[in-house]
């Protein structure tokens, strides 16, 4: 009996001492954090993807609270949570936000295996970064997609996959959150975050080749040759031509698709438009699919 009592007293005292120490420590070493940070954090998506530009959701939450104290949370956006989450955060903090346009990653290269001939054989580490350092790659185009999938490895949302037939990456419209990881991963800046567009419709130049037209055509049949026909045809001043390649400004583009028809190499793509009844061979696509042709 004695033994039992001693055991109880000893263990009980240890427990009591430990509890007191823990309590004192929790009070003395407590980190004073603004409680709002936790609340904002709870409203954010929680993916810790870094798409906002901060390391983790708590980083963005802190920045939002600091911004709110300074009077503005402009420029801070969670692309994963989207307008939904940002509205709730703004309400919590008592701020107003500008409505950001939803964006999506767009792969601006259509140099698939059938359009772009292989001119060399690369051996060694198969990453886009390594192949880019080695040289132009396995084709004649020094600006085009290398097909090793650095963008696919970088995506935290499983929203981009390699099409084995074309050897080009394709973005899944449903899953892409425009966090920008693939944009950073691509050593040739082929991927761009563009406005998703009304009903997901957008028009863009699917080429970033800066070589002169004749050389670009030799490397790839779907290249932009810098002929400028698209710039002439566009009534909204949305297309600029520089360095032998065209670029469509998404803010000015009205989706009329005249440039798509005018392009001689079909380098301009229109995505998510319904089939035209006139039968002109446009590059259209169904909303569910994930392809860029």
């Amino acid at each position, binding site marked *: 009996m004695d033994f039992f009592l001693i055991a109880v007293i000893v263990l009980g005292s240890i427990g009591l001492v430990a509890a007191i120490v823990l309590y004192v420590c929790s009070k003395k070493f407590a980190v004073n954090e603004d409680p709002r940070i936790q609340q904002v954090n709870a409203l954010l998506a929680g993916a810790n993807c870094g798409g906002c530009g901060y390391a983790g959701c708590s980083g963005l939450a802190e920045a939002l609270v600091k911004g709110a104290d300074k009077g503005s949370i402009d420029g801070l956006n969670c692309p994963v949570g989207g307008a939904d989450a940002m509205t709730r955060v703004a309400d919590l903090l008592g701020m107003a936000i500008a409505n950001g346009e939803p964006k999506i990653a767009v792969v601006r290269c259509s140099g698939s295996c059938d359009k772009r001939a292989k*001119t*060399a054989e690369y*051996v*060694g*580490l198969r*990453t886009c*970064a*390594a192949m880019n*350092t*080695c*040289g*132009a790659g396995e084709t004649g185009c*020094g600006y085009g997609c290398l097909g090793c999938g650095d963008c696919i490895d970088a995506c935290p949302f499983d929203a981009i996959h390699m099409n084995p037939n074309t050897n080009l990456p394709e973005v899944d419209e449903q899953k892409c959150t425009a966090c920008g990881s693939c944009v950073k991963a691509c050593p040739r800046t082929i991927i761009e975050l563009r406005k998703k567009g009304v009903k997901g419709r957008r028009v863009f130049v699917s080429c970033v080749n800066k*070589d*002169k037209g004749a*050389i670009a055509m030799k490397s790839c049949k779907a290249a932009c040759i810098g002929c400028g026909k698209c710039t002439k045809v566009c009534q909204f001043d949305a297309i600029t031509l520089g360095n032998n390649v065209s670029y469509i400004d998404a803010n000015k583009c009205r989706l009329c698709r005249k440039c798509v028809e005018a392009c001689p190499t079909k380098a301009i793509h229109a995505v998510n438009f319904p089939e035209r009844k006139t039968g002109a061979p446009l590059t259209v696509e169904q909303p569910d699919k994930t392809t860029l042709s």
Partner: protein
Amino acid sequence: MNIRTFRIGGIHPEENKLTHENATLVAPLPQQAIFPLSQHIGAPARPVVQKGDKVKVGTLLAEASSFVSAPIHSSVSGTVAKIDSAIDATGYRKPAIIIDVEGDEWEDSIDRTSTLETVSAHPELTPQEIVERIKLGGVTGMGGAGFPTYIKLCPPPTAKAECVIINAVECEPYITADYRLMMEKSDEILVGMELLMKAAKVSNGYIGIETNKPKAIELLTEKCAKMFQNTPYHVEVVPLKQRYPQGGEKQLVDAVIRRQVPAPPAIPVNVGAIVQNVGTAYAVYEAVMKRKPLFERYTTVTGKRLQSPANYLVRMGTPMQMLIDLCGGMPEGDNKLLAGGPMMGKALTSTEVPICKGTNAVTILSGDEARRMEPQPCIRCAKCVGVCPMGLEPYLLSKLSAFKQWEDAEHEDIVSCIECGSCQFTCPAHRPLLDHIRQGKQTVMGIIRNRNTKKQ
């Protein structure tokens, strides 16, 4: 006699000096010469000619566009066909001046005689004058890197030059261009060395040569003794153990003067040494004494399956295809075309790439030599650690780079890597160590640059 060598790491690849005893041939002129505007470290040169201009051999085609830059001179006479883009040794299309070759007319200012001009016969050559002529002659590092020579001769105020070390090591397999240059133009090289020492205002000079070139060591030792006999210069020919990468400037400095250059951004002149390739010394002689700008060089064209490998005196701008044809054409089967040697050379996708200032060899690896074996998992044998000449741990740097742990990679001194390839050469599991490390090094250097610019 104790043969000097560098103290950390090193490997012994097969020599394959197929063209060691082949006397240098003069390569014929090409039909079209291509001059990329970026043949050196620094900003690309700015063209000063236009389409249709007539040029002679030695005419200025493009001027230096900034402090760290170099001019480019024509190696042929003819008409400027176009200023367009052409594939260069980086594998990408870069701006280049393309000239249709007509005849072989030289600029009158160039002294084409073969009389040996000595420094003592030209007291008007002050250090400043020598540096100026080197700068105007467009002389850049001929060992491959292409750093503008005149900048090396003007060290920053924090560093004091104590000696000039001539890099005649040629540790890479296959390449014999520097050796042939030493055997055929030794007097000119020594005058060039004296010019460099005068310009750098030093009196000590060393010529580092590997022991696999005994005739060159003998010849230069003899000539050095005669030439620098009654001068204030002390020049020593230093035989070095045959080991790769003995020719790396950091390893050379360690072997010759037993001093180790600190980690980047330090450079050899921080420990008092100005290192110049032996080809550069020759180019300096020609630029200063013969007013001949840099437009031709010794290049080895070699490969085990090449019909007749040889050493050529080649005009820059000559497409490699022409030289390969002279040697019997591309062999059948798989081939890898390298600008440079097998350890640090650049693999090319096109045979139309021109010979540039830094192209010391055209190496063709055929058959099995052209391919790599399948990598296996790392067996942690630590052989890569044993051979790294910079004392790094390649297995660790490669793993950190593959997993994008940039902070840790920086902490493990990844920026000190000289990309010599000894680790990958040695790895029994055939792992692409240097492929990973190179990526990591580039990324970490970018991070450091961003950090430094943010500070300012």
